[in-house]
């Protein structure tokens, strides 16, 4: 939150900061810092809480339209009050704790999960002046807070004292740990190319346009595009979204490690899932899609946080679209995809990014060669690996009936 105004800094751009300063200005000096931090926390909770509520509605509506049915349409206009009805239902439901369960851990699991997933929101730059906490190593912080959620999943599965819940928790952990690797490995090239671990630094490195037309976003480089795809696939798996939603697999596993949860604790798990999805999408926007930068110079009059929101919503709609389109994977297919396909590709991508940064000063005509080599490094291993892994595999033949 730098008050010093760079170019293209309009009143609308600074509006949230001015509003905060105006509100904090009513307080005596020493309390201002604390009140400012508190306001940011409240703003994040309010914005993402509302986003969560309406994301569930949007998901149900869009899934329904894809499946040719109307979806929720009885509560309010277009079913707009459905999230509140759901909230009241979840709050008033009985909270059941199994007699044999570990009561402390059973209670702590959803609390820890929601706390850690909320922590990740702190470092995402939402706009030119909207960075809640600007850390030197904020990308590391983001993933450190993200990995701690695994502990909560384990606690949930173990504390339920139910063998199915425990088995499902182990499966969920296997998935989370497997996909952590490609997720982190796809981020490393961005850190390598921009030379910083701070999210604001990565966004600053993506500013400007080539020939005043093509934004200098990471996703518009060969390794950036490949890294973005790997990141999004891993993000799908990390947030337990379809086609990787087999930890809960509501139709087969009676919701996996959430079997023994009911009422608001159950809702908290889902809230954490959506928060995780929003945070990972926000990180993807920051790392690959230029953060809050506008796609064209003449569109810069629109405030930066609006651009961030547009990109974030586009990614979230992509998540929903994928859920409506793809069938669920089996657990062995899931781990195979991570270890045999995504991890090698991410490692090769790291080498591609290294080549790309080393060949940056090449003169004019050699730039074509640079693009060709980088594209070859991205496409070659992809084709080889996908051919090699699917060789000898045919669709399953069912012999009964």
């Amino acid at each position, binding site marked *: 939150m730098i008050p010093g105004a760079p170019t293209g800094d309009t009143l609308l751009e600074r509006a949230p900061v001015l509003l905060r300063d105006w509100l904090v200005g009513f307080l005596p000096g020493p309390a201002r810092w604390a009140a400012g931090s508190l306001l940011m926390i409240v703003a994040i909770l309010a914005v993402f809480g509302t986003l969560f509520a309406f994301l569930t509605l949007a998901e149900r509506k869009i899934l329904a339209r894809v499946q040719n049915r109307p979806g929720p349409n009885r509560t309010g206009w277009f079913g707009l009050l459905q999230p509140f009805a759901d909230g009241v239902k979840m709050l008033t439901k009985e909270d059941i704790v199994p007699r044999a369960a570990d009561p402390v*851990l059973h209670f702590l699991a959803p609390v820890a999960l929601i706390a850690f997933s909320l922590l990740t929101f702190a470092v995402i730059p939402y706009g030119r002046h909207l960075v809640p906490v600007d*850390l*030197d*190593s904020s990308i*590391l*912080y983001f*993933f*450190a*807070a993200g*990995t*701690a959620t*695994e*502990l909560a999943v*384990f*606690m949930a599965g*173990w504390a339920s*004292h139910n063998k199915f819940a425990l088995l499902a928790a*182990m499966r969920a*952990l296997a998935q989370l*740990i497997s996909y952590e690797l490609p997720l982190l490995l796809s981020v490393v090239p961005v850190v390598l190319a921009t*030379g*910083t*671990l701070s999210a604001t630094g990565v966004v600053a490195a993506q500013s400007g346009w080539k020939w005043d037309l093509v934004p200098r976003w990471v996703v518009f480089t060969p390794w950036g595009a490949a890294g973005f795809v790997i990141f999004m696939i891993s993000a799908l798996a990390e947030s337990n979204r379809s086609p990787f939603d087999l930890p809960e697999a509501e139709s087969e596993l009676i919701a996996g490690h959430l079997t023994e949860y009911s009422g608001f604790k159950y809702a908290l798990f889902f809230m954490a899932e959506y928060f995780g999805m929003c945070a990972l999408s926000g990180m993807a926007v920051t790392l690959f899609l230029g953060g809050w930068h506008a796609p064209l110079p003449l569109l810069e009059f629109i405030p930066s946080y609006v651009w961030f929101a547009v990109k974030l919503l586009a990614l979230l709609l992509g998540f929903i679209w994928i859920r409506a389109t793809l069938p669920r994977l089996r657990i*062995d*297919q899931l781990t*195979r995809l991570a270890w045999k396909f995504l991890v090698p590709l991410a490692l090769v991508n790291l080498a591609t990014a290294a080549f790309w940064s080393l060949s940056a000063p090449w003169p004019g005509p050699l730039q074509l060669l640079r693009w060709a080599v980088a594209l070859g490094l991205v496409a070659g291993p992809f084709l080889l690996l996908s051919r090699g892994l699917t060789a000898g*595999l045919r669709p399953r033949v069912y012999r009964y009936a």
Partner: protein
Amino acid sequence: MNAVLILIALVTVGAAILAMSRRNLLHSVLLFAGSWAGVGAFFLWAGAEFAAFAQVLVYVGAISMVVLFAVLLTRRSREDLAPGPVSRSRAISAVLAGIAVAAVLLAAVAGTPLAVSAGPAPAVSVRQIGGELMGPHAAALLVVGVLLTVALLGAVVLAAGDRPENPEDAP
């Protein structure tokens, strides 16, 4: 500022003491994870951001998982999770081994000269830390990585039984 440090110390040491007094192995592991998070908080308090996040990422995220998996894969039932000492000689040897490890650690800590400077702490950027880790301390980093891999493989070897492969499981 000192109140914060005392709070962090209480959480860290308290969680460690509680972890050792618990009968249930899983409770101990989770309390240890809390203790490690406390160490991370201490690094944060001391201004070492990178070390703090690395501590959380590696210890709370990864090492606690390795320990949890090792505990769960080597136990047959829930009752097995709270074992008493099998025999007196085993209990005594466990205490002796603990004392030996503590003695080595204490000797290492006491034998290391800790330079205390009066001036303000130097601001070290992530880039500098990265350069140090990849340059002069690369060997130590690699050894730590190998150690972690060996620990994980050891857990797998301990836990793996000789079950015949089910042909239905083939991909």
